[in-house]
């Protein structure tokens, strides 16, 4: 076994080195956010700034269109919060129906739902835009949050899988005790679903926080812009070449994403391994 004890350190060195190589771009962005704008590219090869410029975060925060990042962050959080509540609640209700109710056509609707998972969004992009325009919803957050209230197929699927692992005897006992179906869902299944709800909430957070196409289509006054749009604007107004500020705000926009990732790592990895639809 001498070979094995010899092999392990090599294994760890190689795997860790590859992992660091993967993360290098992220570190580069992080350290660039502390470099002076003029020097970011001159010193692109070296990771660490020679002088730490915290000022980038101040200039970046001011944004490019008269509103600061406080506004954009608040806008993003509002959309994320409403959409997530809607997605989690409606998806769990629908999942309960699919997993626990016997009704004619259940398999048909379930198959249909699984098919929508694979439907490329481009097909409905144009008509949805037209519908939302006709409804007068443009330049409001409605197109970005309302669809979430009708269940997200990916979350429904996750939750159906989970509910199926809950013993059916629980339902039977509750029914004998005179518990109606809705009460059964709300008082018994929903609390047990906690981990699936959290997984769905996390993914909903990611999709909404990182969404660019939706806000680009539906929001057109700067005071309503999201963080993603504000970052995109930085790129457009490159003439100012506030590279430092742009990197600083890019990093800031990733802080919630990375914080959620580390807080819920286990849940995210499990949710991913059992389904695998993101990324």
């Amino acid at each position, binding site marked *: 076994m001498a070979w094995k004890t010899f092999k392990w350190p090599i294994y760890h060195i190689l*795997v*860790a080195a590859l992992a660091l190589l*993967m*993360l290098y*771009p*992220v570190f*580069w*962005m992080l350290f*660039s956010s502390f470099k002076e704008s003029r020097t*970011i590219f001159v010193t*692109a*090869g070296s990771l660490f700034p020679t002088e730490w410029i915290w000022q980038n975060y101040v200039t970046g925060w001011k944004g490019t269109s008269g509103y600061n990042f406080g506004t954009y962050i608040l806008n993003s959080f509002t959309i994320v919060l409403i959409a997530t509540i809607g997605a989690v609640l*409606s998806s769990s209700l*629908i999942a309960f*129906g*699919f997993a626990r*109710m*016997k*009704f*004619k056509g259940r398999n048909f*609707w379930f198959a249909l739902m699984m098919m*929508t998972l*694979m*439907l*490329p*969004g*481009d*097909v409905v*992009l*144009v*008509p*949805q*835009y*037209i*519908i939302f325009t006709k409804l007068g919803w443009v330049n409001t957050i409605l197109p970005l949050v309302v*669809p979430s209230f*009708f*269940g997200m197929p990916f979350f429904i699927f996750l939750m159906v899988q989970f509910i199926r692992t809950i013993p059916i005897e629980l339902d039977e006992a509750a029914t004998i005790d005179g518990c109606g179906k809705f009460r059964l869902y709300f008082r018994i299944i929903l609390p047990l679903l906690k981990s699936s709800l959290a997984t769905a909430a996390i993914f909903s957070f990611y*999709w909404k926080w*990182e969404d*660019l*196409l939706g806000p680009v289509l539906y929001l057109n006054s700067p005071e309503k812009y999201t963080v*993603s749009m504000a*970052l*995109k604007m930085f*790129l*457009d107004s490159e003439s100012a070449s506030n590279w430092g500020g742009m*990197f600083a705000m*890019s990093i800031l*926009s990733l802080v919630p*994403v*990375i914080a959620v990732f*580390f807080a819920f790592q286990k849940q995210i*990895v499990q949710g*991913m*391994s059992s389904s*695998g*639809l*993101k*990324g």
Partner: protein
Amino acid sequence: MSLRNHQSLRANMTGYAFISPFIVGFLAFTLIPMFISLYLSFTSYNLFTPPKWIGLGNFEKMFTADPKYWNSIRVTFTYVLVGVPLRLIFALFVAMILNTKSRMVGTYRTMYYLPSIIGGSVAVSIMWRNIFSNEGIVNSLLLALGATPVKWFGDPNASLAMLITLSVWQFGSSMLIFLAGLKNISVEMYEASSVDGASPVRKFFSITLPLLSPIILFNLIMQTISAFMTFVPAYVISKGEGGPMDGTMLHSLYLFRQAFMFSNMGYAAAMAWVMLIMIAILTAILFITSKYWVFYETEKGR
């Protein structure tokens, strides 16, 4: 009506009540839009004047009079056919090296998955743009290695390669699914084949790959569909232009430009339908051929 019928009607009603949000949402945000989009694909429509029926006009223009459309198809297929396999090979490779018993594996898994979690964000696309800029780190690295720096934003092929690298870098979710699959392969299989004197390469091809093939199929289909729909990186990296020389004009970006910059709603709808049909054909091919390369354990009567 007998009591039994009454009861089953009631059960049906309750069932539908629970899934009704899905049905309403499906009709309002998927089915009706699909019909509208199908109708629009035969019209010329700019959002302000009523749609004008032009029959197959959009499709004719697409295939005979719009080289930019063909270019976007070519760019998208290159992106998918090169990017997805690379991404999956890399994902499988990393999953295999992480499929060991070690306390560090959790940490490594996190490190390899992190790029995928932040990958969809504008921040990462902006970063990518800068890493590959003329004076960026990739070029400094090439210079240091004695190679000539590449003008990533001057050459359409180079900028497409840059987009593909970004997609390969986000191999994390496929890696996690592969890892879950690898964990299900029993150690005894490998041990038995070791006794028979099988080499690691042999084990990979006769145990790992066949047993993993259902998961490979799943990853292949999901990743292919999402790759066809890639929008944000192309939009951000090329500042919405799809340049240079349409080198990063992915189909979704071209559709976006046709619909929302040139107000060719009908044309964009037609594009979406052709893409849907192409994806459906490709998925069907994957499913049909999977009979020959996907191995299901139960079929062998284990």
